[in-house]
């Protein structure tokens, strides 16, 4: 489906969850720098990152960001308009009661943070009121989480594999679940800003 053909009730959405890996840094910074500062849904980001490097990543993302971006502490209250980045070497779960929980459980798809687990827990809490976006990446993490998100009525978006540095991740999602929108980076930003 093309962006201008979308006829969805955009007011129903309460949260956005984004998964990315190799090749996604550029589009993440693009989203953060071009998103309308008034965008007030919480955004949860599970991005693959070096597990032993705790510092630097968030600072790099914050440089040109229009939004406040933070690595949550365990059981942190979710606030509107915030961007939450899964900390290095932790899984990030969305809990009932509007909280974020962290976990050091086993890696999944060789990843901690696991995109699947953030998508699964977020869609469990937000049901059909969530938007899931899978960006460029070199493994299949996120595909199962996207499937769960779709089953619970969420809206599924992938970065157009043609525009990805590495398209394994969005393609894996496309292969196992129905994707509502396949968008290039400009249109991902345009879509998010249309929610404001």
């Amino acid at each position: 489906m093309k962006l201008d053909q979308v006829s969805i009730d955009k007011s129903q959405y309460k949260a956005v969850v984004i998964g990315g890996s190799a090749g996604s840094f550029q589009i993440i910074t693009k989203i953060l720098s071009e998103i309308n500062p008034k965008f007030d849904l919480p955004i949860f980001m599970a991005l693959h990152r070096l597990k032993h490097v705790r510092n630097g990543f968030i600072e790099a993302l914050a440089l040109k960001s229009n939004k406040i971006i933070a690595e949550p502490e365990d059981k942190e209250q979710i606030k509107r308009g915030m961007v939450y980045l899964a900390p290095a070497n932790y899984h990030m779960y969305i809990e009932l009661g509007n909280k974020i929980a962290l976990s050091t459980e086993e890696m999944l798809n060789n990843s901690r943070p696991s995109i699947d687990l953030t998508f699964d827990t977020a869609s469990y809490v937000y049901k059909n009121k969530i938007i899931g976006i899978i960006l460029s990446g070199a493994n299949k993490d996120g595909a199962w989480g996207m499937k769960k998100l779709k089953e619970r009525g969420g809206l599924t978006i992938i970065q157009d594999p043609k525009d990805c540095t590495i398209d394994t991740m969005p393609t894996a999602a496309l292969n196992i679940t129905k994707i509502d929108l396949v968008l290039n980076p400009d249109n991902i930003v345009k879509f998010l800003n249309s929610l404001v």
Partner: protein
Amino acid sequence: MIEDIEISELRNLCQIVKEKYNYDFNNYAMSSFKRRVLRVLEIHKISSTLALIEKIKYDAAFFKVFLNEITVNVTEMFRDPSLWRDLRDKILPNLFSTHETIKIWHAGCSSGEEVYSMCILLKEMGLLHKVKIYATDIDEPILAKAKEGKYTIKNMIDVNEKNYIRLGGIQKLSDYYTETSGGFVKMNPSLVENVVYRSHDLVKSGVFNKFDLILCRNVLIYFNQQLQNDVFKMFHESLFNYSYFIIGSKETLIWSDVASKFIIVNSEEKVFKKVKE
């Protein structure tokens, strides 16, 4: 494969476990607890939560297996090397400037990697003989593993040794273990001569001694805030005044009832000092 469990089913499971075995999982954090239960169903090919409840009800041996898999036993040596540097350069020297001997509690020690980290650090500081360490966990089989000190070579090299190098350890990590068959290593047992391993459930076992340093890192993240608050109070009671308390780098106690009784010594590494009884 079962992909989801109703909260009501988890409640029923917790109730049976509490009635039958006196372990209380009611205040465990929901997402991770559900994931652990799903994992048990998958590993043991159990068809439903109801079937799991029946199995637990009538099979005490299986309950031990369940307990082992419900608790998260993923740990590493010298996780967050910057914390271990802080321990070596500031916290431990500070404690030993006023103490001849100290008592340390590793609460929720799991398979014991952090206990070995501490013992290696203390040995390199020449202080190992001046320390008494208590290492506790809810899960007895994992305590036996911790005591045994047998780890995979893969983990030693891929994770633990890298952390040790980042910390700036003065030896090679391989000086502290010998390779055994089947891809395992055995840690040098003399490292843990002063360690007492004992079973302890943070939910119900309570205070059992007083300590100069307590480490409980990435354990309370599996509890909800109500239970975290209770456990923070128990830790506060278990600490001498002016002693140290360390939690995981993304955990906090600032919202808890005992927050005003601690000061923050290192906000990055989550090192707190008790300053009020």
